[in-house]
């Protein structure tokens, strides 16, 4: 026999977060069938009545009262839950505890850390330029994590920085390494013992992460990774931060080589950048997505992709699957009518790299973030669709898939159920800032799909992934790989390797 208990707190207001949190806590207690804390408006009282949690006590509540209403399997459970609610409401457990003194302004931060020489700006974009300007005026280098900073502000800030021999990294700079210290979304390099003699200049995010990770696996080590933002190499900005970064790195005697990772620069800007790189006195490697070897000036080494850049920087080769042999085997399991690759990426640069790898293999691609000859995603019919799930249209009002991999589950389920998809490509990005267990949602989805469909290998697409992570990342590289492997995912050593394997499977299955 269920017991209904109500309590009314007159003129009592609790903020929404606390209300919902306490409601959920009580609902999860043993013996509780339904529990709710709501204001006692006529509309809510009717809802509570219909849900069978209201009694005569609650019926007398007014809109300015808080109603605690619960239905339990007995008086004992009900009283325990009510006692918990009252303890939380009276004990202040629901209010935010006063935190330790923290700087709330740039000035406050400088008073706490007067020796700081870098400010990391992470505010809504409309405020970022103002804060960055204040930081520059205070003599600080700036890393702007925020996006939605106008082109005009970006250019102005970068000019001011260069005039003061400072640098602005970003905007939308998600990743950086300074003296080996990872900033924002970045993989740990603390396990590496090799001398850090390589520096990279990149747009901002997963391209730099993938390069740092692969370099480490190949025995190298990254000293600096400077994220200049996705627009820096455009003619509109004129590579102000890239040029400043080259000057700064040229002065660092411990840096022996500089790797440029970027999309194609603007026509006017490219000449300036390559001229400065060519005269900086260091070995230079250029990994410019969409460039062929002939596009890179003499004296600068051309890297076709991130793996190639890491191999050139380390004078070593990454062990990779025997792609053709593995592709032959995997292609034999591809079901009738399955001939498409579906890429579901959390990293924008990794999505770009995959599109170019597939195009190099003669495959037509489409994407919401088109690269090379890719068509837009709306015209994906007959093409291999490679999606950047971290792009704006997927992340408005919801977390980025690197922070919350669950947001990739719907797309993964759609791909698993699509009878034309032969291969699903995924990136799993580890490191600081990323989700604590990014493979979990993927693994659970694959296991559930298999169980629900009682699938054979021919009934489902092959799933291929690369894990961008290191042995010292907080998520544990090996455990992430093992979980994916156990779920039937083929793991490749690099993103480009995964894309090449996928292309080879399609070609063998054709």
């Amino acid at each position, binding site marked *: 026999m269920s017991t209904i208990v109500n309590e009314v707190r007159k003129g*009592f*207001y609790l903020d929404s977060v606390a*209300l*919902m949190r306490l409601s959920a806590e009580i609902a999860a207690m043993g013996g509780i069938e339904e529990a709710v804390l709501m204001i006692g*408006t006529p509309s809510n009282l009717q809802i509570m009545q219909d849900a069978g949690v209201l009694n005569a006590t609650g019926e007398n509540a007014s809109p*300015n009262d808080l109603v605690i209403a619960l239905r339990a399997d007995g008086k004992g459970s009900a009283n325990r839950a009510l006692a918990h609610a009252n303890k939380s409401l009276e004990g202040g457990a629901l209010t*935010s505890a*006063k935190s330790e003194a923290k700087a709330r302004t740039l000035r406050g931060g400088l008073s706490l850390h007067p020796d700081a020489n870098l400010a990391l700006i992470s505010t809504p974009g409309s405020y970022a330029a103002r804060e960055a300007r204040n930081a520059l005026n205070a003599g600080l280098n700036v890393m702007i994590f925020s996006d939605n900073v106008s082109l005009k502000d970006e250019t102005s800030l970068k000019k001011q920085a260069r005039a003061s021999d400072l640098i602005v990294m970003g905007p939308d700079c998600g990743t950086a390494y300074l003296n080996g210290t990872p900033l924002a979304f970045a993989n740990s390099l603390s396990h590496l013992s090799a001398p850090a003699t390589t520096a990279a200049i990149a747009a901002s995010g997963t391209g730099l992460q993938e390069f740092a990770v692969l370099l480490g696996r190949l025995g190298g080590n990254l000293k600096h990774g400077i994220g200049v933002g996705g627009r820096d190499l455009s003619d509109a900005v004129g590579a102000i931060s890239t040029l400043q970064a080259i000057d700064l790195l040229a002065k660092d005697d411990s840096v022996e080589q500089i790797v440029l990772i970027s999309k194609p620069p603007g026509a006017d800007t490219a000449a300036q950048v390559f001229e400065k790189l060519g005269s900086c006195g260091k070995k230079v490697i250029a990994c410019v997505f969409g460039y062929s070897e002939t596009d890179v000036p003499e004296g600068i080494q051309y890297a076709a992709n991130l793996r190639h850049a890491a191999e050139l920087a380390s004078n070593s080769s990454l062990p990779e699957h025997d792609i053709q042999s593995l592709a032959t085997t995997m292609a034999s399991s591809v079901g009738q009518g399955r001939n498409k690759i579906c890429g579901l990426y959390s990293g924008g640069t990794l999505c770009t790299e995959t599109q170019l790898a597939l195009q190099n293999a003669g495959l037509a691609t489409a994407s919401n973030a088109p690269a090379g000859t890719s068509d837009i995603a709306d015209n994906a019919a007959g093409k291999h669709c490679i999606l950047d799930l971290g792009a704006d*249209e997927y992340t408005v009002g919801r977390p980025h898939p690197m922070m919350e991999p669950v947001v990739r589950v719907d797309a993964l389920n759609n791909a698993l159920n699509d009878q034309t998809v032969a291969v699903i490509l995924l990136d799993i990005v580890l490191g600081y800032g990323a989700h604590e267990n990014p493979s979990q949602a993927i693994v659970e989805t694959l296991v559930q799909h298999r169980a629900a469909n009682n699938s054979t290998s021919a009934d489902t697409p092959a799933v291929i992934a690369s894990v961008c992570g290191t042995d010292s990342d907080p998520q544990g590289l090996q455990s992430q790989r093992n979980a994916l492997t156990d779920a039937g995912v083929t793991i490749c050593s690099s993103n480009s390797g995964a894309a090449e394997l996928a292309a080879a499977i399609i070609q063998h299955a054709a």
Partner: protein
Amino acid sequence: MTSLGEFAAQVLDAEGGDIIAVFSSSLYLQGNNGLCCIGNDTIPNGPVNAVTTLDHFNTKISAGSHWHYSDQCLTLADTLQIDTTHAAHWCAETPSITDIDHNRINEIATQIERVLFTQPPLSGSTVAAEINNKINHGEKQLANWVSSQESTTPDFIDELLGCGDGLTPGGDDLLLGAVVTLKHFGTEPAASRLADSIRQRAPARTNVISLAHLTAACDGQANELLTDLLCACTSGRETNPLPLISRLLNFGQSSGRYTLRGINTVLTQI
């Protein structure tokens, strides 16, 4: 204090009253002229809001204590003083709209719909399902009422007012978004008729905090997150609405989501 909304300023004119609610980042003052929300810089500029540089409010002040205001100084519970000398008077931008760009409105409505589609409301309990059903039903009636442009009284608002969990119920937030949008575009007589009905019925059907925000909305006044988005509907295509939609969506626990639904209900019908 850095900014003071129009309705908040009227409350301070009463020179004193009770502090009726205290949260970690804000508190509510009650005066003869309504309610004023005093908050730290995590609350937006708004008609009912007064933004300060303070950090926390719930460590020294408790609900039920008193406030006084004189000589540009607000004193809370005899323990905390806030100088209002440099507070900027904040008022929502109310552009005069002579020509509605339906393509732009459709574009923004589509983006709001996409965002809301990817973020369905939480469910799971019987009560949550009941709330969703009621608000969905009220939302459909609101859409029909706006599109029909009938001169009927919007009786359906009884179902929405005070409906939902949280400090400001979702039904109120939805109506707030709708009435401010109607006011913004000067959609008469719907705007005035809905505002009049809310003014008349809300006092008996929701709490005083939600009522304060609704009352301002009935005069076309809402916080900057909402008004910035509405201005993007009429300010030309150079403004990317996605960050504005995102900002509003993430306001409060669920207030932003329901406000967006109210805005969208109107945008898709005018």
